[in-house]
């Protein structure tokens, strides 16, 4: 296979961000009391996470997923398909499937590269027909069946995404100049910069400005295409 299409997920292919499934997990503990306690702790850490989000996406990911500390691995896996059904599946953008299909038609290998956790992304990959070996995600560290609240290295975010894409392309024999990259966020500029065909999907303002400066294509897959309007 000559080239690959690397997709960020949250905000790019689906209208969720890292918070949606995380909140779902925290809100669905064994008891209402435990759920309230975990949500409360997460809320208390909110301001710190907000600052981290502005300064360093990797730090934000680490702070966010630290809220999972003490949760059992079994429970997280059981909840993951439920979390997908309730939070992710309804928010898949109308143009996502067509775009993925067009990439496949063009002979590209599809790779999801995201800061989300592996078990929340797997059902989406299945839905989009992407092999599990072609997802690059964050992974929680578990000890004796319990989450430690730490992320395993490397933490998938910002510049690390670009480094992981370079490694992945080498492993699969792709020339990155022929590869396509898709993201919605300014924090993903490094991953968009290493491919020959960067694209922005529903970009934030900073990324939109950059995309305009560099003539990167800006796509809208959130609005139903004119054909889908008719279908509806």
């Amino acid at each position, binding site marked *: 296979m000559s080239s690959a299409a690397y997709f960020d997920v949250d905000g790019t292919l689906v209208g969720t961000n890292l918070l949606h499934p995380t909140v779902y997990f925290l809100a669905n503990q064994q008891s209402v009391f435990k759920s309230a306690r975990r949500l409360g702790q997460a809320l208390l850490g909110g301001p710190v996470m907000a600052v981290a989000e502005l300064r360093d996406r990797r730090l934000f990911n680490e702070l966010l997923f630290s809220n999972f500390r003490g949760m059992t691995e079994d429970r997280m896996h059981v909840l993951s398909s439920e979390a997908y059904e309730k939070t992710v599946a309804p928010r898949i953008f109308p143009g996502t499937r*067509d775009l993925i299909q*067009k990439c496949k038609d063009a002979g590209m290998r599809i790779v999801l590269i995201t800061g989300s956790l592996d078990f929340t992304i797997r059902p989406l990959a299945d839905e989009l027909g992407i092999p599990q070996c072609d997802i690059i995600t964050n992974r929680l560290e578990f000890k004796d069946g319990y989450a430690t609240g730490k992320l395993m290295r490397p933490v998938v975010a910002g510049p690390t995404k670009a480094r992981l894409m370079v490694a992945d392309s080498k492993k699969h024999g792709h020339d990155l100049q022929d590869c396509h990259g898709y993201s919605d966020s300014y924090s993903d500029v490094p991953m968009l910069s290493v491919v020959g*065909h960067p694209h922005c999907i529903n970009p934030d303002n900073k990324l939109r400005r950059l995309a305009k400066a560099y003539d990167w*294509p*800006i796509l809208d*897959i959130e609005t139903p295409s004119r054909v889908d309007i*008719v279908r509806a």
Partner: protein
Amino acid sequence: MAKTPHPCVVTIDHRSKPRALFSGTRVKEYNLPVGSRVMYPKPPMTPLNDVKAAVRYAINHPLGSEPLYAMLRPGMKVTIAVDDLSMPLPPMRRPDVRQHQAEVVLELLRDYGITDIHFIIATAFHRPMTQDEIRHQLGDKIVDEFYPERCYNHDAEKPDGLTFLGTTAQGIDVEINRRAAESDLVVYCNLTFVPMNGGHKSMGTGLVGYRTLKKHHNPATIRASKTYMVPEDSALSDKMVEVGKLIEEKLQVFHIESTVNNRMFDRPLDFLGKNEDELSTNEARGLKALIRSLEWLPQPARQAIFEKVPAPYGVIGVWAGACEPVHEACLEKCYEQLLVPIHGQADIGIFPVPYISPYNVHSYLNPLLVSVMAEGYLFNLYRGDPIVKKGGTAIVLHPCSDIFDRDQHAAYTEFFHKLLPRTRDAKELHKKYEHEYSRHPGYIQMYRSGEAYHPAHPFYMWYWGENGRQHYGRVIVVGADNEYVPGILGYETAPTMEEALRMAREEHGSDPAITCFRIAPMLMADVTVDTPAESSVRTEDEES
């Protein structure tokens, strides 16, 4: 014996005023050498008084088919296909002639109890029209009732959106918009602005997909076309006919064609179509004022001056019925308005490139489109022989700024800056890159849900100039604001007209034949050349 020139062909003498020629969104004055010939558009023909009445008459007195009402029965499925906004240029003042056509047809369909009606804008790989643009073209009534569920743009990339109709004798696979293919009747509402529009091209291009388009939009077909403004001299037209005939075999299609005069500018600017030596005092002042204003206004404001005012084109004919007789009648009228006879080819052609082309309505004429105009449209706007001799020089007037509309021409940018520097060879571009780029998922998405041209379109644009590119010896740009854009296109640059003419004289001697093709408004050259016998008589006359 010297032939008397047509009144629209003016020979420059020492008393002639400078010529006011378009250079993008500016108009500039140029002194042309004595003896140069300037071709002006013919005066606009008198328009029809009642266009709706003409449409009604045409569909009740069709050419080569039964009247539209005889084809109708209650409960049938009808698709009304309509040209996109690429013609006329600029868009005509409301109501557009296609609105008249569509409203008359719609009224008739309703009288016959037909309710399953869809309007499809036949965009092919052009950008989708916005709701406002469709409203401008089809009117409030149709848009309010049908948009967006039953009035939409053709989507050549819609999964399962195309139906395969068959393969022509020459091996062209024909796949067409599924809704049109599944309709009991397709009514095509057309406006033929230049002779390459209309006829079998309407259905054979407007409603098909890549599988069909790539068979006629390719370098070999364009190179084999002498001019695509004359069907008999166009290999492109031959292939369209082939595709169109197969479509007509499989589907019932009723064609309505119309054409307009060349009244591109309304009263305050109509002096732009006139001979500078014949302007009234007020018109001459108006021209000076316009030139000065355009000189200091910023580009968007200059663009707005021309774009915001729809053209007052008048409809000069409407015909309906079977494709070929209808198109023939329409072309005859179109030629009558556009053709300006001129005898003899030039060594040097001067081609002002205005601000608009079929592919940049409401956006900027980017460098690739400059080449489409210079070596495509302006080269091909002739009947008989090209305006410039084989190996001659084209002097093109345009700033060639490196500006691309990011929404409409996203794929153009990559084509221009990434592929053209690698090669300008259309065949190589076709062979090495077209397939890959035409399947570019991001650009396809922009075409499907945004306002972008399809990623194959910049390739087609480059091919579009292929016969001009093969014909000219040199292309020199006057007034370019940079050298690298003309360089990428393979053009030379000159700071002034005098310098460009000096460069051209290096090739063509000290007394070259010069013709200036003074577009816009629209015109077309009807070029005749001496037969060998006439040529020898002329030589003897000159010697005696």
